């Protein structure tokens, strides 16, 4: 029970003070869970993050659930999850009441008229960066282009597009698995560092220091 409380407060602090989304949160979670409380060994933590990253849903919530579950079972999972989301819910509820009151004020309206085009840019920029990091070639460029066309032009529900994309890439992944098996090569272990999602995860401080050493 004590651990559940500690988990709640650790994730509450993280939820209340991290700006900039899920990945900014990771180093704070690592500091709390791995460095300070020593609940989970460093290696296991990053292996777990690699798996959690590929799951759907809110990344911060998934992380809280897995860390909580690993440290203190069901109680821990719920304590950590509530800790992670209660600050956001409280802040937004407070802001929503204030915002509805003042949004028709001409001053507020003027400020938001300037902010809206900026938000559009802030959404477009990471999507292009993602295309770059996914190493999209001229051949595979059809995938993002078709996605944009379907959702933006045809107004297809993104849900169907995601399901179709999952089906397509699952078939692709199964073909890769069969090929590697036929060739008699062991498939690369995605959990080992340097390949798979683990390499996309920002490295821990201690790892970075190790790499910096000659």
């Amino acid at each position: 029970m004590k651990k559940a409380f500690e988990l709640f407060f650790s994730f509450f602090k993280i939820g209340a003070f991290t700006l900039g989304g899920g990945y900014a949160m990771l180093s704070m979670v690592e500091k709390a869970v791995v460095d300070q409380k020593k609940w989970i060994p460093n290696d296991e933590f990053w292996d777990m993050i690699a798996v959690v990253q590929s799951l759907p849903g809110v990344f911060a919530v998934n992380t809280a659930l897995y860390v909580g579950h690993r440290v203190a079972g069901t109680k821990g999972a719920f304590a950590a999850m509530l800790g992670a989301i209660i600050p956001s819910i409280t802040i937004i509820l407070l802001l929503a009441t204030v915002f509805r009151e003042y949004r028709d004020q001409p001053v507020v309206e003027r400020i938001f008229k300037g902010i809206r085009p900026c938000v559009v840019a802030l959404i477009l920029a990471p999507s292009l960066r993602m295309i770059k990091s996914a190493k999209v070639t001229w051949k595979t460029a059809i995938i993002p282009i078709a996605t944009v066309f379907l959702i933006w032009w045809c107004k297809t529900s993104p849900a169907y597009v995601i399901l179709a994309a999952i089906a397509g890439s699952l078939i692709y992944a199964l073909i890769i698995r069969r090929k590697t098996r036929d060739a008699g090569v062991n498939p690369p272990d995605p959990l080992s560092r340097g390949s798979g999602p683990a390499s996309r995860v920002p490295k821990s401080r201690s790892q970075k220091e190790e790499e910096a050493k000659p």
Partner: protein
Amino acid sequence: MIYLQLLWVFVKIGVLGFGGGYAMLSLIQHEVVDHYAWMTTTDFADMVAISQMTPGPISINLATYVGYTTAGFGGSLLASFALCLPSIIMVYFILKLFMSKKNNALMTNTLKGLKPAIAGLIFAAGLSMMNTQNFVDFGRGQYNISVIICVLAFVASYFFKANPILLIVLSGVVGFFAY
């Protein structure tokens, strides 16, 4: 009825929300703005801006706000909980399945294939917000300050990785003086 709709919409978003907060924007936008019209496109843009400037996940913030505006305090809790529900179920069932090495390789490769589609999804969310509600002076024979803000913010964010909060504050200041 509204509670059931909120539950259904946000559980769906929780199940299909691959690829992080921005990737969920497209799903949320389609359901909340286009399909159910719980929010206008300007509301949506404002909430994304507010989510950027406040701590916490963007999707939880949007769920709370949508729930609150459509069904009050209870609605806000329900929508946020619905968004987390698939994750809670996954902790118990899916994790054991995917922690095995064999299945994990399959999952990693599937996700690699999914990435270009997710990028397209996010781009479409941005494109759908390019309208005259969000770009108020577009096509009115004026200086098109909104387009200038958008282009400058894009360059600053894409090429120079500028802090999004700083960009939002700056464009708010520009908006205050320009409009």
